[in-house]
C-alpha cells in the first residue's frame, strides 16, 4: 500500500561509530525487499530507523510519500516482527494479537463532517484476530500463553500480531533465525505463500543469503554500513557488483583466483593457475564490447559451475582432492590447484557412475575446467565487477575514502589470502 524511500540516510552512534552510510533506496509498493549482509553491516539499524526505533542521524525516510523522520513508530503505519518474537509473556495469544488493536484509534466522520477518533469495537477486534489466526493456522492456540507454544507457533503468533494491523509496511527483523533448520525451511515457504495474502510492502532483514534469494523481489546487500548492490536475486547471482557480493551470495562461496585477462585477436583468454582458458560466449562478447584491456584481475567461478574433465582437455586444471563431502545429491570436493590455490567444486552425483564416486576420495587427482560464460571478472584494485553497468539497474557504490576512517575501508585491496 505504500512506497518507502530512503534518501541519504545515515546513522551515527555517539560521536564516531557510523553504522549506516548514506543509504539511498526506493522500495516500490508491495515489493518484498530483503536487506542481507554479515553481522554489523547496518541492515538491522536501517530497518529500525524505518520502524522509528532508532533516530535518523541524517537524511530522510518517506513512507507513502510522507516524511516520517520525526514520527513515533506508532504513527508510521508499520508492523514489525522481531527476531526473538517479543511476545508479551503475560498475555494470551489472542490478547497478544489484539494488543495493538485495542490501543488503536480510527477516525470516524459524523454527519456534520467532524472527525473523531474512536476505539475499535470488540467485534471488529475479534474478527480481525480470528481471521489472521485462521490464515496462520493458530486458531486453536488463541487462549494459550506464549510459553506454552513451540518455536514455530510463537513465530506465527508474532507474524499474526503484525498482520492484524493491516499496516502499509511490514518489517521483519531476522524472523526465522531462532528456528531450527527444518522449521526454518518450512516457515520460509509459508512466508512466500503468506505474502500473497498480506497486502503490503515487505522489508525483511536476514544474514542468510538463502532466505534472501528465495524470498526477495529485490535484495539489498550491505557491508559495513554501505550498500554493496541492489538487484533481483538473479541479478546479484549472475552479475555480482563486486567481490564481496560475489562471495556472499551462493553457497559454498565463489572460488576466486588471481588471474590475468589477456586480450588478443581472437578474443579474450584468462591465464589462471598456469593454464590458459578461452573466454567464450556472452562474457567474451561483453568484454569485447567494453573494450577491456589486458590486465591482472580477480577471476571468480562458482563451485557448481566447475566440471570434471579429462586430461586431454587443453583448458584442464590438474587438482588434488583434499576433502570430499558427500551431500547425497552432490559431492563437494575441496581441491588444491597447481599453484596451491584452494577451491571447491560441486559435482552432481547423477552425472557420475558409482565407481567414479567411490574413486573421488581425498588424495585422488582430478582435472577440472570451466566455461567462459560462468567466469566473473573483478578489478584487483577495487574488487568491482568489470562487466557491471551502472545503467543496468544496479547500484555499485564508488566508495570514496573521505567519508571513512582508515580501518573502516570496505571493499579495498582484495589481495587474496591464499
Amino acid at each position, binding site marked *: 500500500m505504500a512506497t518507502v524511500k530512503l534518501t541519504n540516510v545515515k546513522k551515527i552512534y555517539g560521536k564516531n561509530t557510523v553504522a549506516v552510510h548514506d543509504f539511498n533506496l526506493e522500495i516500490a509498493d508491495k515489493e518484498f525487499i530483503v536487506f542481507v549482509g554479515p553481522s554489523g553491516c547496518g541492515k538491522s539499524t536501517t530497518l529500525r530507523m524505518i*520502524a*522509528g*526505533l532508532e533516530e535518523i542521524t541524517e537524511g530522510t525516510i518517506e513512507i507513502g510519500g510522507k516524511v516520517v523522520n520525526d514520527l*513515533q*513508530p*506508532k504513527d508510521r503505519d*508499520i*508492523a*514489525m516482527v*522481531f*527476531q*526473538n518474537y*517479543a*511476545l*508479551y*509473556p*503475560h498475555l494470551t495469544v489472542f490478547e497478544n494479537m489484539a*494488543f*495493538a488493536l485495542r*490501543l*488503536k484509534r480510527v477516525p470516524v466522520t459524523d454527519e456534520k463532517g467532524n472527525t473523531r477518533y474512536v476505539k475499535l469495537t470488540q467485534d471488529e477486534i475479534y474478527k480481525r484476530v480470528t481471521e489472521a489466526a485462521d490464515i496462520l493456522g493458530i486458531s486453536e492456540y488463541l487462549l494459550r500463553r506464549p510459553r506454552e507454544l513451540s518455536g514455530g507457533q510463537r513465530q506465527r503468533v508474532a507474524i499474526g*500480531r503484525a498482520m492484524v*494491523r493491516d499496516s502499509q509496511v511490514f518489517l521483519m527483523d531476522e524472523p526465522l533465525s531462532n528456528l531450527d533448520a527444518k522449521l526454518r525451511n518450512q516457515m520460509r515457504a509459508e512466508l512466500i505463500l503468506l505474502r500473497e495474502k498480506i497486502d503490503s510492502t515487505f522489508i525483511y532483514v536476514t544474514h542468510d543469503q538463502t532466505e534472501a534469494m528465495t524470498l526477495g523481489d529485490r535484495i539489498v546487500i550491505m557491508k559495513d554500513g554501505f550498500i554493496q548492490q541492489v538487484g533481483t536475486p538473479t541479478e546479484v547471482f549472475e552479475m555480482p557488483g563486486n567481490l564481496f557480493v560475489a562471495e556472499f551470495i551462493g553457497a559454498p562461496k565463489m572460488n576466486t583466483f588471481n588471474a590475468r585477462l589477456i586480450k588478443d585477436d581472437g578474443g579474450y583468454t584468462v591465464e589462471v593457475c598456469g593454464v590458459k582458458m578461452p573466454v567464450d560466449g556472452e562474457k567474451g562478447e561483453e568484454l569485447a564490447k567494453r573494450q577491456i584491456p589486458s590486465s591482472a584481475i580477480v577471476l571468480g567461478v562458482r563451485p557448481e559451475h566447475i*566440471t*570434471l*574433465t*579429462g*586430461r586431454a*582437455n587443453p583448458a584442464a586444471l590438474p587438482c588434488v*582432492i583434499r576433502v570430499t563431502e558427500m551431500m547425497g545429491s552432490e559431492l563437494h570436493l575441496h581441491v588444491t590447484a597447481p599453484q596451491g590455490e584452494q577451491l571447491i567444486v560441486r559435482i552432481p552425483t547423477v*552425472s*557420475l*557412475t558409482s565407481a*567414479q564416486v567411490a*574413486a*573421488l*576420495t*581425498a*588424495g*585422488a*587427482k*582430478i*582435472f577440472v*575446467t570451466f566455461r567462459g560464460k560462468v567466469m566473473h571478472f573483478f578489478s584487483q584494485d577495487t574488487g568491482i565487477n568489470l562487466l557491471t553497468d551502472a545503467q543496468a539497474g544496479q547500484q555499485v557504490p564508488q566508495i570514496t575514502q573521505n567519508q571513512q576512517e582508515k580501518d573502516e575501508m570496505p571493499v579495498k585491496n582484495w589481495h587474496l589470502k591464499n
Partner: protein
Amino acid sequence: MTEEREDFLDFDIVPEDEMAGDIDIEPAPYTPHVSAEATVSRREAAEFPEEAPEKRHMSQRTKNRIVNTVIHVVLAVMSFVWILPFVGIVLESFRCESTGLAGYIFPKVWGFDNYIRLFTETKFPKWFLNTFIMGLVTAVVQTVFVLAVSYALSRHRFKGRKFLMNLMLIFGMFPGFLTLILLYTWMNDWGLTDANAPWGLIVIYCASSGMGYYIAKGFFDTISHSLDEAARVDGATRFQIFYKIIMPLSKPIIVYTTLMAFMGPWGDFVMATFMANNSSAGYNAAAGLQWLLTDSMKNDYYTTFCAGGVVVAVPITVLFLLLQKYYVAGVTGGAVKG
C-alpha cells in the same frame, strides 16, 4: 496432448559435453589405519579384570551413606542451634516466677503474666500500632518510589542518567547516621518528632527510598527490550508500556520490594529511638522493646521484652515464610547482580 503442453516452455537441455564417461581420476592410495587401533584397545581391556569396578562401586556407596549420615547429623545440630534462641525467647515469655534474667531455660511457673503486663503496663499496643501504620504507609510509598526509579534507570536512556546513578552511588557510601541530627532538627521544626515521631519516620523512610533501586533495576534489566519496542510499534505510550507490559511481568520484584519496605520499620530501633527522643508514645515496637532492656528497666521487664518479641516476630515470620519465594528470588538476583 500437444495443445495442453503448449503453455510449457520448451527446453532442450543438452548435457555438458565433458560430463560423465570422459573423466580421468587417479584414486588415492589405500591406508589401513582402522585395524591398528582395534588391536590396541583389545590389549588394554585385557589388563583390567572384570570384577574390579564392581567392588569399587560398592565401597563408593558405603562411603556415600556414611557421608550422608554425617551431614544429616550436622544439619540436625545446626537446626537446633539456630532454633534454640527462638525457643528460648518463647520459653522466657511464659516465665512467671521472676522478671529479670534467669540462669535456666525452662520456666518454673508457667503463665501469661508477661503478655498481660506487656499490654497493660507498657505502651506496647501503641508501639505495635505505630509500627504497623509505618509499615503499611512505607510499603506503599517506598514500593512506588523504588519501582519508579529502577524502571526509569533500567529502561529509559536519557541525558544525566549516568550522572544520577553515580550521584546515588557516591552518596550511598556515606553512613546514614550522619544525617540524624539534621533530619531530627528538620522534623522537629515540623512537629514530627517525639509523640509524632512515626510520621516523621515515615517521611524519612520514604523520601530517600529511591536510593535502594539496585535490586529492582537488576530485575528490570533482565526483561528483554524488544518487548518495549514491540509495544511501541503496536502504538503504546511509554506509560502504557510501563503498566500494561512491564508491571504485569514484575510481580516477583513488586512483592519483594513491598515485603522489604513493610518489614523495615519493624527492625529499626536507631532512627526510631532518636526521633521519638524519650517520648515513649512515639516509639515503634523495636525502640519500645529495646527501651525495656535499658539497665534501669531490665530487671523488671526482661521477660516482658521476650513476650513483646514473640508478639512482633510471629506475624512477621508467618508473612515472611508465606512470601519466602519472592524474597529468595529478590535476594539471589540482587546478589548476583551486585
